[in-house]
Each structure stands twice: as C-alpha cells, then as structure tokens.
C-alpha cells in the first residue's frame, strides 16, 4: 500500500516552469474523481476499494506492496514467524507519530487489530480476521506479537492492507468521520456531498510528497468522469469505464494510464438445482462463451479473457491452467448428451450496470439453444438476491449470477476461499452457486497454511485446474485497470498500481 502512499505530484516547479497551472497562486492541488463516494473515514469499517483509495494517503500499514506485489517494510521494519507458523513478531519503526500527535507504538498496532475482531464493535472490515486472529499483544513499546489460530500464509499480505489507526482518536469515537493515521497526507475535511480534502503532512517520517493537497471527488454518472477529465475539472479520473477509455484514447486533452487489474468477472452456476447440477451443461456454457469477443465488445480491448479463477496479478496465478475455448459445436453436443438437445432456459441475476455484458452472454448462449432470461437488478436488490441461501435461490428460480470479484491484497486465498470453498456457500460468504468439492476444500486449506511460497504456488496451480474442470463458474474476463489524466494537470507522471490504485509520485 505505501508504495502508493509515497504520493507526490509535480506542483510548484511545473507551475513556474511550464505555467501549466491556474493563474492565482494557490497550493498545488490534485483533484481525483471516482464513481462512488467514500462510505466512511474509518479504514476498518468498509470493504470498498474506492474508499480505500481515498484513505490510502492518510493511513499506513505494517507492511506495503512493492513492485510485483512483493511485501516490503512500512510501519514495521522487520518481522518473523516462528516454526509453528502461528506466532508472528513485528518490529516497529521508531519516532513515528500519528497526525493527532499521539505516538505510533505497539499498543496502537495491537488496538488497530483488536478492534477489528471485537464483535461488539461490529466493524465491517473484520471478516478476514475473526476466524484467524487469536490475540495480538504489545511485547514492548516497539514489538508486537500476533498469535494466530492456525498457520496462515496470507497473513503478511493482510498486514499490508490493514491500516493502523490512532488509538486516541478511536477512543474519542471520531474515526468514522475524521481519518487519523501516520501517512504523508493528513485529513482536512469531508464534505459528504462534495469532497474529501487532504493536506500534506509536514511531520511525515518518510519522503514528503510534492502536491500540497489532494482533493477527492466523485460522481455517480460515468459520463461525467469522461467530461471532467476533458475540461480539467478533474486532474485524474479512476477507474475509467472502458467505453470512455476507447473514446478518450484519441483526445489530445487526455492521457490514458493503463495498469494491471485484479478483478475477475464470472457467472456463478447454481450446482444444487437442475439443469446446472450436470457438469456437461456447465461445460457447455463455458464452450458457448466467446471470451475474446467479450473482451473486444465489453472491455473495448482493455482486458484479457479469463482462463483461471485467479487474476494474472494474483500470487500463484497459473498461466498454464487449461480453460475452455470457444467451441459452440462442442457445447451443443454436450447439451444433447445431457438430454437438453431441445434447448433449455436459465434465469440469471445481474446488476443493472452489467446489462450489456449480460445481453452479450444471452446472444452467445442462444446460439447453442440456451435461452437466458436476465433479471436485471438495482444494486441493493441484487446484493440481497445473490447472497440468498440455496432454498431462497431455488424459490426465486435463480439459476446463475453474473458478478465480479477482486482481492485487495492479491493473495489467492482471498480470491478462492470465499468463492469456491464449501463453507463459503451463501449467505455465509460468496460461493454463490453452492459448489462443493472436498478435494478442493482440502487443497485450499493446505495452501492457506503453507508458508513455503513455491509449495504454495504448486498447491494453487492444482486448485485452479480443479476449479476450471469442475466448472462451477463460467469465467469471463480480466478487465485491465484504466485511469485518465488531464494533460496539463500538475500531477506528474501518474501510474496505476496492480489492482488499479492511483500513484502519482512522478517517478
């Protein structure tokens, strides 16, 4: 995370030399526009990647992601794990202060984690810890010890995306509306209808960023992102919908910034009811899907077809995983073998925003005799429907769900366990098609506990192929991360980190 925290923009030099800024002398400010407002200022009380982006300049974590998503030191300078794999000890950076003046120490770290697992707090960000973390204690001022319930390989990656908060601020109960961290920017104001304003933290322990202010704004109209970056009312818009990316490619006023995405789009097939309980039908749908065409039409080329349930940027992604090619004839044969030679009808739940993708699938599947009925749903209705239990989905006649998933830490456990493990059947988590393979469950459990990276990779390679072969999902594509920058804005050379977070430090 902190790689993007070393946020720096060009600023004064650019203003003076190129005269590319505003005429009135004012602090160099970078305006970033997103498509959704932040849900809170408390980094532990949300699971939204766009909220994470807004808070990222203010907060830091024990570790951070460097190039290639390798884990590097941040607020912790060193760490080790004992032989059992359950006891992690972190040595903390000294002479660091929170933006409210309180000292950063082991107590603050222990508190930041303990509050996440406290059921009485009911914080939204607690999911990944409650089952794993047994205790976290301050061994001395600058040493913190985590005790896990079982060996857990993703732990180091999780520490990279768990911001450390000021205990004093949390005790005052203000974190949901004011952010108080140790990062290079400090919180100024959150006008809930307008913006979040952040200002350079001059007491920051690390390299100081150049831009004096960051202004985060948002709109719920995608077309406004496109227009704002053209007029320069936004210096950066992120993420940019592919349809606008294609249009803006030719504009001299805008520069596209392309990065690696971590999200995977798929259709979850309900394996507990006919006809999708039949492997041949699920395989047929996979063969009936022309992924290259989807990338071309839906993503305008900004992406790649999916061959695996992991995204290429995820740790352990196996490029060799054999997916399904486009083969409508084979799809028809499989359907005939399964007794659906006359065709069949499926009902799919999809978000309104994904309407065009749903219709593209409808067209492709119609070619092999599958009539797809699309239930297009508003976001709130959709999220309630797709997390229904097997009985609820059967009652609603939902055969499949169009959805996407991205893990913020690029660890395969966060991409695979919630989607494919048996104990993740919805509503418990996001196994939306009720897939269950005990062999895969064991693989995922062993891989999560395997601390040797090479052995772990091998386990995940097997897991990926197992999932593809069982076909609980029709895997669709990996969208690329795309942002846009207004040419002439004093943002420096902005770039996208894997997963799509913006980093504009001009390197």
């Amino acid at each position, binding site marked *: 995370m902190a790689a993007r925290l070393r946020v720096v923009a060009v600023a004064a030099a650019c203003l003076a030399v190129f005269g590319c800024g505003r005429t009135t002398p004012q602090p160099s400010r970078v305006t970033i526009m997103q498509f959704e*407002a932040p*849900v*809170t200022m*408390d980094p532990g009380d*949300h*699971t*939204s990647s766009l909220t994470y982006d807004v808070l990222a300049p203010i907060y830091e974590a024990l570790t951070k992601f460097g190039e290639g998503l390798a884990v590097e030191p941040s607020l912790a300078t060193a760490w080790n794990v004992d032989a059992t794999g359950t006891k992690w000890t972190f040595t903390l950076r000294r002479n660091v202060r929170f933006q409210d003046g309180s000292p950063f120490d082991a107590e603050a770290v222990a508190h930041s984690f303990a509050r996440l697992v406290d*059921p009485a*707090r*009911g*914080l*939204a*960000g*607690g*999911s990944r810890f*409650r089952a794993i973390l047994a205790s976290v204690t301050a061994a001395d001022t600058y040493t913190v010890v985590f005790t896990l319930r079982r060996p857990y390989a993703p732990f180091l990656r999780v520490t990279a995306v768990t911001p450390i908060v000021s205990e004093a601020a949390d005790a005052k109960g203000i974190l*949901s*509306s004011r952010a108080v961290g140790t990062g290079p920017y400090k919180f100024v104001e*959150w*006008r*809930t*209808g*307008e913006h979040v304003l952040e200002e350079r933290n001059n007491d920051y322990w690390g390299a100081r960023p150049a831009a004096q202010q960051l202004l985060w*704004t948002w*709109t*719920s*109209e995608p*077309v*406004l992102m496109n*227009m*704002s970056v*053209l*007029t320069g*009312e936004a210096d950066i818009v992120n993420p940019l919908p592919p349809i606008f990316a294609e249009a803006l490619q030719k504009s001299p006023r805008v520069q596209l910034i392309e990065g690696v995405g971590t999200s995977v789009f798929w259709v979850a097939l309900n394996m507990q009811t006919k006809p999708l309980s039949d492997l041949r039908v699920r395989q047929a749908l996979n063969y009936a899907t022309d992924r290259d065409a989807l990338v071309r039409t839906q993503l305008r080329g900004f992406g790649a077809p999916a061959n695996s349930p992991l995204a290429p940027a995820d740790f352990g992604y196996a490029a060799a995983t054999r997916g399904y090619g486009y083969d409508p004839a084979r799809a028809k044969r499989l359907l005939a073998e399964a007794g659906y030679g006359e065709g069949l009808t499926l009902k799919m739940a999809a978000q309104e925003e994904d309407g065009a993708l749903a219709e593209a699938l409808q067209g492709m599947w119609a070619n092999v005799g599958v009539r797809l009925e699309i239930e297009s749903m*508003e*976001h*709130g*209705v959709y*999220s*309630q*429907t797709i*997390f229904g239990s097997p009985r609820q989905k059967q009652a609603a006649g939902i055969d499949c769900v169009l959805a996407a*998933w991205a893990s913020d830490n690029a660890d395969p456990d966060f991409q695979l366990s*919630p989607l494919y493990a048996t104990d993740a059947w919805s*509503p*418990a*988590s*996001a196994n939306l098609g009720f897939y269950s393979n005990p062999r895969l469950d064991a693989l995922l459990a062993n891989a999560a506990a395997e601390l040797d990276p090479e052995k772990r990779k091998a386990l995940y390679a097997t897991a990926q192929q197992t999932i593809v072969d069982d076909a609980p999902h029709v895997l669709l594509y990996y969208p690329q991360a795309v942002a846009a920058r207004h040419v002439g804005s004093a943002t420096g050379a902005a770039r996208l980190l894997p997963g799509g977070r913006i980093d504009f430090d001009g390197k």
Partner: protein
Amino acid sequence: MRTYWIRKLLGLPLILLVASFLIFAAVRLLPGDPARLMAGMQADQQVVNSVRARLGLDKPFAVQYALFLRGVMHGDLGVSTRSHKPVAQEIADRFPYTLALTSVSYAFAILLGITAGVVAAIYGGKMLDHFVMLGAISGASIANYWLALMAMSLFAVQLGWLPLLGAHGWKSYILPSITLGLLPGAVIARMCRASMLEILQQDYIRTARAKGVTGLRLYLKHALRNALVPIVTIAGMNFGSLLGGAVITETVFNWPGVGRLMIDAVRYRDYATIQGITLLTVALVTSINLAVDLLIGALDPRIRFE
C-alpha cells in the same frame, strides 16, 4: 375563514405523523439489506449480522418506529449509516444548495413562463404564438437529463464557457437552473397563455381598450393581474415537481444538495437519511400549498375557503 386556517395549520403535524409512518414502513419494504450494503460484498455473514445489530435493524419494527418517533420529537432524525453524521446536520449542510438552485430555477421558470405566455396570448393564433407554444411543448417533453448532458457537452466541454460540475459561483447556476426550470417554465407558459386569452375576451378589457388603454399597460396591469390565479396555482403545484426534478439535476451536475444526497441514500438503503429528506419534502410541499392558498385569497378577495 379563520377557522379554516386554524384547521389547516393544526392538520400539518397530523400530515407529518402519517407521512412519517408511511415513509418509515416504505423504506423497510424496499428490497435490499442496509447491513449488507454497508458491510460490502466481500464481508461474510457474521460481520453483516454484527453490522445489522449495530444499526439497530435487528429490533422489531414497532420498537424501531417508536425510537425513530421519539428522536424526531427531539429534533433527532438519526445518524446516516454512510457518513456517520447526524441526518439533521447532513440535511442542514446540503439544503442551502438545493434551496438556492430551486429558487433560481423557479425564478427562471416563472419569468420564462409568464413572458412566453403573455407574448403568445398577445399574438394569439399568429406565427409567434405557434412558435412560442412549440417551444413550450418541446420544453415540457425533452428529458431534462438528456438536455443537461447535451448542454454540458457543448458549453462546458467543447466551448469551455461554463463550469461542468459543482456549485462554484454564479456561473455554476446557469446550466442546472435552465435544465431544472425548463419544464415548470413550459407548464406555466401554457397555463399563462390560456388564462390570458380568456381574460382578453372579457368585457372589461374591451372597455379598457375603448377608454384608450393600450400596450403593456393593458396587458400587464389589466389582463395579467386578473389572469394570475390559475398561474399561481399551477406555479405552486410545480414547486413540488421542481424539488423532485432537483434529484436528477443535482446528480447530473454533481450539485451538493439534498437531491444528490437522496440518490446516494437510496442506493445504500440509508434509512435514516431517506426518512429525513422525505419528511422535509413533505413539510415543504404542504407549507407551500398552504402559502399558495393564502396568496390566492389575497389576489382574488372573492375566493373564500371554508
């Protein structure tokens, strides 16, 4: 007459109470789970449940309503599940923006409507009348959403004359208030024309003409004044639709008012915020209808409310 107004005023709290119940029940009938939306798609069920408990949504409906009502009595509309700020404060922060935008739009609508209506009536049946009315029908039929995007694309993106988004100075008002005021303006224009045409055929107008009253004095002082009653009625009724239209206009122009707050609140099933804004709207529309009654009584002393 006095008892009429007393009854009307006493009826207000009752209307609000009934409205509060309907709103409270309606938001809970909406499909969609606020706890799931707040926790996010990646949260597991255990976390969603604890968020639900924190929001007090695991309590029985009657208890939730009683708590809400008690809060409202004390001026406490609850806390937004998104911003974690008191809803009353959220609305107070945003309402001035909405009030400013709707007032400017309203003024634009009335000015446009009455001017166009009077001009059309004066030239009744002639080319100019047809032309103005064609404009009015178009104004009433064009989706203001589409119009806004076209205007933004031309004046903000292509020509760069006007700001695209937000509320930064007087220039920011131009596009949103035209977008928002066009529909009520067109409605008022049609009503104004019809009312004026009727009045212009009355005997007293002929008498006035015979006496030598001509031009604007005849049309504005003698005719328009007497044509105002239906215009004020329609203009009053349109204030409500203006507030409704503000939801869309504010979203398109990223205007930091309550309309946009409402859109976000509905998307995330932020019950407290939806309830607060709807209650405010009910109170506003009822008060304005009351004010229109008063104004009509003042304009035409023959009108009596019983």
